[in-house]
Structure formats: structure tokens, C-alpha cells
């Protein structure tokens, strides 16, 4: 019987056609939905090998990994009527393949719809905030509010948004030049201030130094005068203590010394003949 050879070939061909129809391999990175003539039967969220009815059921796979929804940069109006170019992106993943299949079908379409939703929520949010808040303080708060705002809407597409972030918030090109002018003026102001502060510090320091120098000298002069006064006082007291012993003798002795000093060679004096000094000129005996 030679029919086995053809049978074998038929079996192989059959297997080659049917096996892929029966088995569905869902990867770690995928979600899948099994549909029967377009009618969703079940959704598959974990990876592995699955079996379906061949030819009747078909499997549609979706990306399970975290998706990037990158919105284009847009010029938005803030609550204080200023314009900012804001570039935002959202991250989210398909969590409900059935909903996703029914409402969106492809990641490409999901991307444009999510971006639209995020953009409109962002526009609404930005319109309520001041430019300065968007630039600095409230950025994270705005991001969280946009995220919480789009979340329920996007959830209806079977997608869970986990993060919305402002990638860039820049001044429009038209404003940039006036920003530069403002920056220049501000720098000029700072430079002027620095130089003036330098002059201030200089003047102050020199004045302080001069004052201190005068203080040091006058303090020394004061102490010097006090010391000299004390010296005079000490001298007086030392003299007095000593001379008090015999004031009369001091007067006598000191007067003699004074004679020695002020009677110099061209002094002329007149002495009476009966002075004690000449007592013995007249007679050798003392007269009284």
C-alpha cells in the first residue's frame, strides 16, 4: 500500500496549516484577544501557550509594555495671557485588551487619541495657571493634575495612564529676544551693583582704618599723659617725704646748690662787709 507516503505528506501539510491555527503563543510583551468572527471571546493578559478553535477563532495581539504617547510641542496660553511652548508626553499601558479592541483596535490610533486627550486636558490646565508657576513651582502639580484628568477618559480605551510629564516649557521664539534684553539689563544692574559695593567696601574699610589708627594713637597719648602725671606725683611724694625730715635744712642746702648754678662767672654781686663771710676780715675772733 503506497498511500502512506501521500498520507504522511498530507498529515505534515495539515499539521503545518492547523497547528498555528490551534496554538497561540502570547509573549511577555503582549496581550491578546480571541475573537470569533470579530466577536471577542476572551482576553489573554499573561504570556504562555494558548489553544483556540482553528480557523473560527482568531487572535489579535496588543503591546503590553509601557507605551509612550509623545504629544507635539504646542503654544499654549497661560492664565496671565502669556504664551509658552509646552511639549508633553504621557506614559501608559493597555490594561484591558477587550476595551482596547472594541474602542481603539490599534496602538497607532490609540496614540493619536490619547495625545488629543492629553493635549486638551493640558490646554485646560495651563489656562488656569500663571506662567511663573508652570516654569518653576507648580510643574509637578500640573503634571499630576493632567494625569488625573486624563486617566478616567483614557481608561475607557482600556489604557491606564501612569504618568504625564512636561518635557519642555519654553518661551516662544518671538519672545526670546526680549527675554535676552531683560537678562542683559539685569546683568548690567548686577554688575553696577557689584562695582558700587566694591567702592562702598573700600571707603568703609579705609575710614575704619583711619579711625582705628587715630584711636590707637590717642589712646596711647592718653595713657602716656596719665603715666607722666603719675610720675610727677610719685616724684613729688618721694621728695616731700624725704624733705619733710628737715625743711629748714633743705632750704639751706638747696639754696647753696642754687647759688652754684646761677652764680656764674659774669655775675656781679654786692656783699656787705659785715657779712658773716667777712667776719674774720676784721678780727680773728668771732664777733657774733
Amino acid at each position, binding site marked *: 500500500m503506497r498511500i502512506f*507516503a501521500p498520507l504522511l505528506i498530507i498529515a505534515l501539510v495539515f499539521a503545518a496549516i492547523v497547528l498555528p491555527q490551534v496554538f497561540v503563543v502570547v509573549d511577555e510583551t503582549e496581550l491578546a484577544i480571541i475573537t470569533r468572527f470579530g466577536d471577542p471571546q476572551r482576553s489573554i493578559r499573561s504570556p*504562555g501557550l494558548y489553544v483556540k478553535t482553528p480557523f473560527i477563532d482568531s487572535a489579535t495581539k496588543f503591546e503590553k509594555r509601557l507605551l509612550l504617547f509623545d504629544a507635539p510641542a504646542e503654544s499654549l496660553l497661560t492664565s496671565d495671557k502669556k504664551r509658552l511652548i509646552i511639549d508633553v508626553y504621557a506614559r501608559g499601558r493597555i490594561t484591558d485588551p477587550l476595551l482596547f479592541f472594541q474602542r481603539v483596535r490599534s496602538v497607532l490610533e490609540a496614540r493619536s487619541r490619547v495625545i488629543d486627550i492629553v493635549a486638551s486636558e493640558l490646554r485646560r490646565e495651563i489656562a488656569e495657571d500663571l506662567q511663573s508657576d508652570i*516654569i518653576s513651582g507648580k510643574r509637578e502639580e500640573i503634571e499630576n493634575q493632567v494625569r488625573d484628568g486624563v486617566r478616567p477618559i483614557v481608561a475607557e480605551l482600556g489604557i491606564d495612564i501612569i504618568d504625564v510629564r512636561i518635557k519642555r516649557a519654553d518661551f516662544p521664539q518671538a519672545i526670546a529676544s526680549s527675554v535676552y534684553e531683560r537678562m542683559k539689563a539685569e*546683568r548690567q544692574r548686577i554688575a553696577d551693583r557689584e562695582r558700587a559695593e*566694591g567702592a562702598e567696601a573700600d571707603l568703609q574699610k579705609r575710614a575704619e582704618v583711619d579711625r582705628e589708627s587715630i584711636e*590707637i594713637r590717642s589712646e596711647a597719648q592718653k595713657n602716656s599723659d596719665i603715666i607722666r602725671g603719675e*610720675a610727677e606725683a610719685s616724684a613729688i611724694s618721694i621728695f616731700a617725704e624725704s624733705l619733710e625730715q628737715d625743711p629748714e635744712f633743705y632750704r639751706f642746702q638747696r639754696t*647753696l646748690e642754687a647759688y652754684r648754678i646761677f652764680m656764674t662767672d659774669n655775675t656781679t654781686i654786692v*656783699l656787705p662787709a*659785715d657779712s658773716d663771710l667777712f667776719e674774720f676780715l676784721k678780727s680773728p675772733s668771732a664777733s657774733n
Partner: protein
Amino acid sequence: MYRQDDPEVNLEQILERISNFFKRFGLGGGGSGIVYGLLVVIVVGVIVWLGTGFYTVAPAEVAALRRFGIFEDTAPSGLHWWWPNPIGNRSVVDVQQRRRLEIGIRGATPFLEESQMITGDENIVDVQLLVQYEIKDIEKFLFRSVDPAGQTIKDASESALRQVVGARGIDDVLTIEKEAVQVDTKELLQQLMDTYETGIRIAEVKLLNVNPPAEVQDAFDDVVRAREDKERIINLADAYEEDILPRARGDAQRILQEAEGFRAQRVNDATGQAGRFTSILEEYRKSPEVTRQRLYLEAMEDVLPGITKYIVDSANGGGLLQLLNLNNGQTPLGPAAPSVQSGPAAPNQ
């Protein structure tokens, strides 16, 4: 259906069953060559297919292995075997290489659109950043996020950097807060990488360049010059202080030392003279009358020799007239004139 057994054993069993199957229909041994030929083709095909399951992992790499889409295991470097397609999958990733991402610059070319950003005080600053990262969790890296090492980390880096810079003034970003910008950006970026389940570890975030935009560079440079001017002037003032104050202190010392010297001199003088007086007085008291005479006479001896003297006799009356005459006269030693003068009075001279 898929079986857990070793593939070879599995194959032999299958071949045996097929063989038995054929034998049951009386085809054993003498049967058709085509059937066996086909069987050989199948067996060879299966062996070749299984052979494609051998693979090598280079030293720095790790392979992530999937079987029917399920992540099962990782394999380190070396020669391994894993189920080939369509049963198994393997993805090899370099986990040791430190990868680089540049923001605001590509090699040496600045990328202004990325690098220019707004600071918290609404100025524009030019920031170039280098992010270095490694893959720490291969499962997350491969299966949890789309393009983790591409758009994901790039967007997140830009966003993190701009948020961090946007929270600071331009002066801080340009100077003292550089370090803080790096630290905060790294922390925020790592947080985002974890939120996005990228399996990426941020190794380093480094600011390559932080500058004011070229349009305002001159103005910023002028501020730097102004600060230098200020420093210079303050230095000069300090130098003035260092010159003047030590001199003043020196002067003060001189004044004080002179005063101290004066005091010592004055006190010494006084003490000396007082001592001298006391000594003389002591001796004088022992014989006052004689000593007094002696002192007087000695003094007179010392004083009188060199000077012009007139001795007038007090017994004669009008010595004064004669005295006046004598004053006008030239001869010093004239005749004695009577005088009432006593003591060492020097009249007009």
C-alpha cells in the same frame, strides 16, 4: 503538544511510535523507500532545528530566555542551549556596558533646542547633560517598557533636567547649585525609570556645560569682571589696613614706652635726690652747726671766685649811690663802698 522531556528522548519515542504505527499496518522493513525517506527528512529537519538552539553569550552579556512567550530564566556568558523558535526565544543584552546619553549636545555639536531651558526666575540657560546608565534588571528592561534605552530615557532625562533647573534661579544653576542640579536630576530620573519599569539604573548624571545663552554671554562676563573688580578693590583696602594699623600700633607703643621711660627717670631722680638729701641730713644732724658753716663756706668758695664782687661797708651810709656809680665804672675792684645790701642780691645787670 509540548512535552517536558529531553528533546532527543522525545524524538526517539516519537520515531519509535511512528515506526510501530507503520509496522502495525504491515509496512515494517520491506516497505516503501519514500516513507523512510520522508521520515529521515523529518528527523534530520528536527535535529537541525534543535541544533539552532545552541547559542553563546559573550562575557558582558546576559541572555533572557522565554518558552512559549513566558520569561523562564537568564543565562550567563558561555555556551548554552535553549528552545529554538517557535517554542523558545532568547534575547541577549549587554548588562555591563555603561551606556551614555547626551542631552543638549551630540558629540561636539551643541543642540540648542534641547539645551536651552528656562530657569525658575524666567531666564534662559544653556545646559548640556551627560547621563550614564546601566541595565540592572533585564526582565524589566526587555518586557515592561517600550524602548527603555531610547526615547524613554531621553524624554525622561529632558523632563527631569528641565524640572530641576526650572526650580532654581539662573545664578544658582550657573554657580553654587550645579552639584545639586546633578544630584536632583539623577534622583528624579531614577524615580522615573523605576516608575516606567525600565530596569535601568542611572549611574551618573553630569553637567557637561552650563552657560548663559550666547546672546547674553557678554553681559554675564561683565558681571564676572565686576565681581573681580570688587574683589580687587577690597583687597587694596585690606592692604591699606595692613599698612596703616601696624604703624599706628607701633607709634602707640613708642608713645607709651617714652612715657614709661619718663616715669622711671622721674622717680629715679626723685629717689636719688631724696636719698642724697637724707644721707646729708643724717650727717648734718650729728653736728649741725659746724656742718652748716662748712657747707656754706664751701659753697661760697665754689661760687665766689669767678664772679665780680663788691664788698660794701655797711657802717658807711649811702652805699647805694656808690654802688650805682660802680656799676657804670670799669674797674671791678674799687674801694669799698658802704652798703645796706645783704645776701646774694644781684641788682641790675
